[in-house]
């Protein structure tokens, strides 16, 4: 294979602090049965990349538990396959990395031992189908030093981190700006996917160590727009950025649109850990409209415009509307939820009434009793 894959599992944790308190960005549940990392991992595998390193930092037990040996992605390989890259403490000050460049410094030995010519790097903060092979072809065809993938869209201004946007001229990136003021206009927003030669990445890392550079976009990309051939590749398909809590909510809900669902899952090639839950059962009084429901659920109540994860129980008379309910949560008899994101293993007692708002869904943390 031409490229080795690198997945940053928690570069943007601070955008969704509620959801990463007990996990990494990559292991945030999404779409009823997935975790965010399933999307970049499946994209890697579907693009024929069979060596993938996952960079982790902290709270990555849930991530390890999810990816395991990599067998569900066909990445449990004798040669290559899935490799977890835990943080490497030797940054001179015993602390964990704080930037992408520092994280990369910690995996130089992984990178130098790979034998693929190119590196495809991605984060876990988006849900999309991307063919890295096509992007790599584009990269080679354009004799690019670095190719950055962007999506034309209105940047999420509620995000904690400002969106990185590009000025693109004849496919070449000529300017880079952080979007801090809302203007409602479309921009070329960076998707955090990039491709370059492995040898170039290694020399960038070595150079940044000796010169004390810390920030990949500012110190490497912005500084080299003229001296290097940095190309932009526009991703035209479905793209849901998980850049804020609100964006997380809306991205989940975008799966209720059959066109989006078809684009993401039409060929059944998004892979995830298999749990062997029992089939989902509907009772005689169930009423369900416009919702996605995973396996292992028992639905006796009403569910509308919602995403229901594995093993959820919706008791008789319970009403769940416009909500995301994660694994193994129980919604008691007569309880009512509207615009609520309920984390795993929550128990909503009988008759409880919870309501958020469309632009401000309310969050119930993992394991709570309400």
């Amino acid at each position, binding site marked *: 294979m031409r490229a080795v894959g690198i997945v940053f599992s928690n570069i943007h944790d601070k955008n969704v602090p509620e959801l990463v308190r007990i996990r990494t960005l990559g292991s945030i549940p999404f779409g009823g*049965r997935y975790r965010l990392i399933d999307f970049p991992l499946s994209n890697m595998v579907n693009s024929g990349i069979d060596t993938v390193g996952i960079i982790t930092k902290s709270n990555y037990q849930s991530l390890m538990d999810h990816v395991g040996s990599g067998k569900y992605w066909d990445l449990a390989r004798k040669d290559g396959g899935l490799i977890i890259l835990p943080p490497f403490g030797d940054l001179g000050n015993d602390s964990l990395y704080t930037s992408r460049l520092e994280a990369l410094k910690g995996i130089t030995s992984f990178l130098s031992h790979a034998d693929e010519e190119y590196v495809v790097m991605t984060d876990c903060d988006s849900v999309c189908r991307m063919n890295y092979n096509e992007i790599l072809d584009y990269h080679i065809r354009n004799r690019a030093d670095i190719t950055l993938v962007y999506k034309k869209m209105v940047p999420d201004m509620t995000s904690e981190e400002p969106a990185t946007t590009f000025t693109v001229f004849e496919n070449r990136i000529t300017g880079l700006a952080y979007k801090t003021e809302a203007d409602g206009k479309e921009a070329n927003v960076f998707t955090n996917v990039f491709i370059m030669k492995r040898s170039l990445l290694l020399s960038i890392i070595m150079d940044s160590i000796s010169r004390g550079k810390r920030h990949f976009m500012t110190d490497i990309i912005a500084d080299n727009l003229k001296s290097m051939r940095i190309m932009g590749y526009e991703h035209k398909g479905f793209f849901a950025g998980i850049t804020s809590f609100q964006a997380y909510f809306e991205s989940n809900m975008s799966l209720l649109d*059959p066109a989006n*669902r078809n684009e993401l*899952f039409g060929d059944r090639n998004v892979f995830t850990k298999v749990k062997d*839950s029992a089939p*989902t*059962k*509907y*009772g005689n009084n169930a009423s369900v409209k416009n919702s996605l429901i995973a*396996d292992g659920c028992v639905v006796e109540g009403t569910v509308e415009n919602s995403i229901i994860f594995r093993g959820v129980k919706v008791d008789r008379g319970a009403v769940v509307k416009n909500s995301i309910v994660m694994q193994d949560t129980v919604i008691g008899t007569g309880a009512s939820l509207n615009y609520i994101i309920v984390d795993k293993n929550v128990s909503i007692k009988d008759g409880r009434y919870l309501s958020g708002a469309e632009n401000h869904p309310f969050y119930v943390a993992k394991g709570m009793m309400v």
Partner: protein
Amino acid sequence: MIRKKKCVAMLLAGGQGSRLYALTNNIAKPAVSFGGKYRIIDFPLSNCVNSGIDTVGVLTQYQPLVLNDYIGNGQPWDLDREFGGVHILSPYQAKTSSEWYKGTANAIYQNIRFIKQFNPDYVLILSGDHIYKMNYSVMLNYHILNNADCTIAAIEVPMEEASRFGILNTNEDSSIYEFEEKPKNPKNNLASMGIYIFSAEKLYKYLEEDNADPNSSNDFGKNVLPKMLSNGERMMAYKFTGYWKDVGTIDSLYEANMDLLGDIPKFNVSDPSWKIQTRSPMSPPHYVGDGAIIKNSIILTGCEIYGDVENSILSSDVVVEKGATVRNSVIMADVKIKSGATVEYAIIDENTVVSSGATVGDPKESGKGIAVLSRNITIGENAKVSGGQIIDKDLEGGAN
């Protein structure tokens, strides 16, 4: 220390299942899907794993392609092992003879070398056509405690049905004194479940003798077990009281599926302490559209439901379009029920299309029986399949 397994399981999965007609045209009975998510063989395999038996030989013969592919390296059941694990055992050619498995006993006999490489103390013989949850390790302890040479699992069946089964007549201590194969006037209602535990050395001995006997039909029930009994070996009946269903006929397969429905189902597959493990499809959660009505049903991952579904089992990736109705039916994976079609009291096998306006089946009350559609066929627009009909090729559309 010699590496060994205490107990090796041998699963007889070669049966054609001819009474399932069109459902087993191209696949072996154990590979027939069940309960939306499972195939029949998931039950004995999961029972093995949950009972701590990690070495299973699966003996295939009839149409093994789907079954082999399904079992693969055994990973879904955690049976991908360095020592042990699941092994597909198909009939093979040998230097002096090459033959198909002649009977159940002959199938095991031809694979004695497979068993011996694990040097087991006990051998568990299973069949791949029953739906049940059973802890074989409890049965094995019973076998050991009773100092038995062979233990046969048995279940009480209704007296009026007893003449369809192999009946075990037992003494007070549950030791067996007589077998009666499908007796006209059964003395009792204790039926053999086709699950045997043998002490390994006895099994080897009797299989060798059976093989040397030209008059034998090489069958456990007909030959080997009666021979052991007449030789005075200690044979015990192990009484099982849980749910057990032979799904060898269209009607029993349908009933067993329906036993999963209801507030308190007759058969519970969602017991976390006895997980039924299976090869799961990588499909997204199922989607229920705005106009859909779903009552008392099981719906699997990847389905898209826009119509009415009642008292039915829908396997993965089934589409029920707007205005379509599915009632009292078992729908297997990847089936499409197009708009305005009606399916009632039917079993539809994988990847079949019921076109717009078509009608499949008649209500149970009509007495016509279950309509069956085999896999990979298309029922044309406005076509009509009556109750009790079995269709195994494309059916042209009917008049409006």
